[in-house]
């Protein structure tokens, strides 16, 4: 179980330090779990505001949204989706490893999770760079003349297209920010796991970190079709 060469935290073997206002360790655990789920509910509403804006403008400016969507790289988007789902697998297996007291496996899985997260962010950086090069970043140098040329059938209004890209950056940006926070969180968890803090008696932070990570994955599961797959059918 714990490697004697590494400083071992007592939690893994004996359970967490019981805070003074709790009666049992189970109460403490259930409290932490409920708190995380409620926090995730607030995050649903936080992202929900942007989904509301997206819904309305997609309804109004479907053609511009279709063109903007086509200008996104579907392969990179698909790769990122695969990467993120893979990271959800690794963190779920990590929680299981903690439950079973397999410290080294836990560390490996947590590291894999955060590495996959970094891959995701790297790919996102590449995509944003592409948008920069194509003048698709809203602001002074915004131009979708290229899309107007490429999709004359869609009769694109340039200003309406800017709204698509504003939402694209707001939504993927907010998602990426949450990923960055997640990566930071997992660095912390990996270090603690390496020290042997987590085991069958105490793995709450791993479980809660996992819940957060899965939530960020679910946001992407919706962002992918909504941003990348609006309209890819062959145009007449």
């Amino acid at each position, binding site marked *: 179980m714990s490697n004697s060469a590494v400083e071992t935290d007592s939690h893994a073997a004996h359970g967490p330090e019981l805070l003074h206002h709790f009666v049992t360790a189970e109460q403490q655990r259930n409290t932490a779990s*409920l708190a995380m789920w409620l926090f995730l509910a607030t995050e649903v509403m936080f992202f929900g*505001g942007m989904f509301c804006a997206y819904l309305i403008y997609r309804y109004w400016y479907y053609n511009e949204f279709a063109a903007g969507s086509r200008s996104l790289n579907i392969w990179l988007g698909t790769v990122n989706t695969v990467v993120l789902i893979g990271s959800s697998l690794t963190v779920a297996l990590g929680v299981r490893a903690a439950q079973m007291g397999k410290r080294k496996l836990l560390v490996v899985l947590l590291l894999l999770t955060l590495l996959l997260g970094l891959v995701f962010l790297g790919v996102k950086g590449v995509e944003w760079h592409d948008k920069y090069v194509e003048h698709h970043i809203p602001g002074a140098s915004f131009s979708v003349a290229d899309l107007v040329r490429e999709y004359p059938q869609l009769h694109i209004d340039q200003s309406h297209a800017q709204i698509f890209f504003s939402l694209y950056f707001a939504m993927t940006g907010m998602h990426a920010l949450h990923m960055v926070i997640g990566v930071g969180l997992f660095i912390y968890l990996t270090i603690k796991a390496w020290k042997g803090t987590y085991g069958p008696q105490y793995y709450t932070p791993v479980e809660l970190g996992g819940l957060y990570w899965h939530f960020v994955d679910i946001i992407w599961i919706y962002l992918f079709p909504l941003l990348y797959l609006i309209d890819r059918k062959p145009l007449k």
Partner: protein
Amino acid sequence: MATAAVSAERETYLNKEYGIRSWLLTTDHKRIALLYLASITLFFFIGGFFALLIRLELLTPAGDLVLADTYNKLFTMHGQIMVFFFLIPSIPAVLGNFLVPMMIGAKDLALPRINLLSWYLYIAGGALMLYAMVEGGVDTGWTFYTPFSTAFSNTHVVEAGLAIFIAGFSSILTGLNFVVTIHRMRAPGMTWSRLPLFIWAHYATSIIQLLGTPVLAITLVLVVLERTLHLGIFDPNLGGDPLLFQHLFWFYSHPAVYIMILPAMGVVSEVLACFSRKRIFGYAAVAMSSIGIAVIGFIVWAHHMFVAGISLYAALVFSILSYLVAVPSAIKVFNWTATLYKGSISFATPMLYALGFIGLFTIGGLTGLFLAALGIDVHVTDTYFVIAHFHYIMVGGAVMGYMAGLHFWWPKITGRMYPEWWGRLAALIVFVGFNLTFFPQFILGYMGMPRRYWEYPPEFQILNVMSTAGSTILAVGYLLPMVYFMWSLRYGKVVGDNPWGAAGLEWKTSSPPPTFNFDETPEVTWEAYNYDQIPVPEEAWLE
């Protein structure tokens, strides 16, 4: 049962540790409540100061005290500070923090460190807001409507927006803490149906804080992004819809008004029961109506937008839904009235405020129904009628509820009684001052005086003078408690566990309570409001 003995020897949450670190790094919910009390009081008086300047300007029809732009800043800052830095936190952060664990028999809130974080977030937001004020303020109105706030205003919209964003997080975390606490930390025997209605009220409030505030948060982020990075989604030049901002803003800000009123309703239930020596009539109805208000409160927001440009069909839907939300509020008023019937009534200060609440909240609430009617709204929206409506609820309702609670639980919090006759006098002054300030505004609005205008036609002057006169009386009414509460800390009569003879677990421990609230975890075997089993106390302040 502890007597009013020398409290210096007994360990309480106040004397357990001394020094500023023990306060600024505390995780004791009672100390955090007092930290909030101090900071909220500061913001109340800052917001009130802006109100007095507004009323001073409106003493004369001409705009002669300040410039028009300055006036815009005055009503904006008054609104933002009062809503976000006073009303939203007030009862939950002060009384809720202090009492929720005690009322359910717990040693602390579920997440004490998050509680302290909440306070620091509030202070950070408050500091940023004060900075924005000192740097010149904001002039968009507390509602930040686009495109003025995103594209045209030259004031510190970003700082104010971020300040409210940060304070919003404080609110979310408080709500989260309360929900988790009420689910997980109840003492043995404290079932859901035995919870004081104050707890039900705070549970409902917390749901709103959790699910509504994040939408405000993202909306403010989008406004800040639009202003700084020109990531326009509300910009009409790009085909953006200014009404989208309003939909997202009011999705939070309407339920926010229920964040402000529900806790006050919780206080009223406790106070009314105690000073009628009766259980609240229709406990289940009152508890469920709190949840009902919280849920229905989320589906009425566009009644703030009837003339803004939404479709007529949407306006009809939201109008009907707005009538629906009055039902649970009315249920409460009827149940409170039934509680009073054949009760053994005494008119202590908290009771005066609670009775005032019922009357003034009813007026405010009914005028809300006027506004929910599309035909009437077209004429009185954006006039002083609306201002009077929401001040009746916010000040005549929420603030009076807060005052009732402060007075009711002051002896528990401090171990001292405030001077009762001064309390009653202040309550009376507040009631008179309040009505003189705001009733004329109903008439002004009906006659057509617009809100947010710094000058007005001369025929409106008499009512404005009455309103300003009322506001000075109201100010005196609010200053008096400041003075006598402070006085009571040194000279107030020392009290025992239960000076009011009230029901509730918080009254079964000493005043002030020990750090962990109870010497032994209580085991509850009785129903709430068991006034038939509690003897009437003999103290003099109930004469």
